């Protein structure tokens, strides 16, 4: 004979079990919703060494973001309803203060050789095959005459920005919102989203 306490305990277990099953379904649905597009499939499994290289790269990027956010806090705030003058002044301040704060920055500080090798391999895989011709077309169609690449200096304001192929972005190490990948010819850049400063770049990243 079951007591009332036992009954309520069992009912509680059943409810809890149903809740967990429901939660499980919800997780499956959410995950399914975000990965059912093959174009957005995550990158293939990486080796422990590659994983370590990517982790180190992500840490370097985080360090940069911390630094630029400190610099940003000291700059005058930019409103969402800014005038062109305010935008221009903000961008200049951010650019100059970032440069001063990382005056010893050199090419390869963020794209260290290990992660650079990993990214080159990833890009090579993505650029292979006839169906990947589109990626090459997108990247190489941009007119980039006279664009000078220099760490800590902005990407030329008057120059066109090449579109980052959407399917490629999902295969590269993910970046925080403050930082962007860019291609300039075969070079791959890491650029600050707001100041447009080149944080680092990899020459001959593309096959």
């Amino acid at each position, binding site marked *: 004979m079951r007591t009332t306490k036992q009954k309520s305990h069992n009912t509680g277990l059943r409810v809890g079990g149903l809740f967990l099953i429901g939660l499980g379904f919800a997780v499956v649905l959410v995950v399914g919703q975000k990965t059912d597009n093959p174009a*957005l499939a995550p990158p293939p499994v990486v080796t422990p060494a590659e994983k370590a290289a990517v982790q180190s790269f992500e840490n370097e990027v985080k360090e940069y973001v911390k630094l630029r956010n400190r610099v940003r806090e000291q700059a005058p705030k930019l409103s969402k309803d800014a005038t062109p003058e305010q935008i221009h002044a903000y961008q200049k301040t951010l650019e100059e203060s970032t440069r001063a704060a990382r005056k010893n920055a050199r090419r390869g500080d963020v794209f260290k050789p290990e992660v650079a090798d990993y990214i080159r391999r990833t890009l090579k895989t993505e650029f292979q095959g006839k169906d990947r011709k589109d990626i090459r077309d997108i990247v190489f169609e941009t007119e980039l005459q006279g664009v000078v690449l220099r760490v800590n200096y902005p990407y030329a304001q008057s120059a066109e920005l090449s579109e980052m192929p*959407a399917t490629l972005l999902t295969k590269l190490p993910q970046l925080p919102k403050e930082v962007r990948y860019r291609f300039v010819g075969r070079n791959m850049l890491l650029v600050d989203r707001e100041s447009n400063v080149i944080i680092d770049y990899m020459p001959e990243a593309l096959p």
Partner: protein
Amino acid sequence: MRRSRINFFLIAFIVVSFLSPAPAQKLNNNAAKTAPAASPVKLTLPLKEGSLRFAVMGDTGSGTQKQRDVGEMMVKYRAAFPFEFVLMMGDNLYGGETPRDFETKFSEPYKKLLDDNVKFYATLGNHDLPLQVNYTNFNMNGKEYYRFKKGNVAFYSLNSNYMDKKQVDWFVSELAKDTSEWKVCFFHHPPYSSAKKHGSDNQLREVVEPIFVKYGVDVVLTGHDHVYERIKPQKGIYYFVSGAGGQLRSGDVKASSPLTEKAYDRDMHFMLFEVAGDQMYFQTISRTGETIDSGMIVRRKK
């Protein structure tokens, strides 16, 4: 004596009248120095009571006289078709973004519209720096991708320069809860285009098209190719390329493209839209005021 004096003045008046151009002709001659002869405003849109009215223009920011001509023509058409806002398809400022560039490439060409409180909603093109999202007159509210709603229409501005996972996740989650009758997306790079210079962005299409289909997007507006093109509906979705609001690539549309429903690459243009219930009307107008395309889209049952 008196009669001969009257005759003299009459003859003098007639001679002067023949030799001098009429005031209207003078006006046209002056106008011809800055703009080509313009067609009169001919509206094909129904102007239904309570309808939502907006304009579309792309690849505008050249700062040229022709961009200004398009702006002037938009003002003329607005007198007949009072649109509330304008969607910009990106490349809002070419070749530099100093405060002066914002003036010559945006606020001066559209001064009359801005003065009349017409709102502009921008998206970023491959010539635009991300800080444009903070510019007050682009109404992007500091965001590279955003949604706003007018009447029964939800508008999604996407950043096709950088379609990363964060943006895709945001887009999917917004669409999943969107109960608006119409869903219109606008961004710079065209998933479908018959232009020779850029053409269809297959990479972008691979990512966004399944989302459009799954969540019932009705209309997609883009630019990038400096032409006008209305694409044959693809998987039930209407795609437009409107990338010649300030730049033109004359003769760029492939003549026998199977994608094309209607194309125009001889002059710059802008578009007008009117949404009334389940019907969306559109009219495409050249820089000189000629109607180059028009039609109606009926909302799909979802």
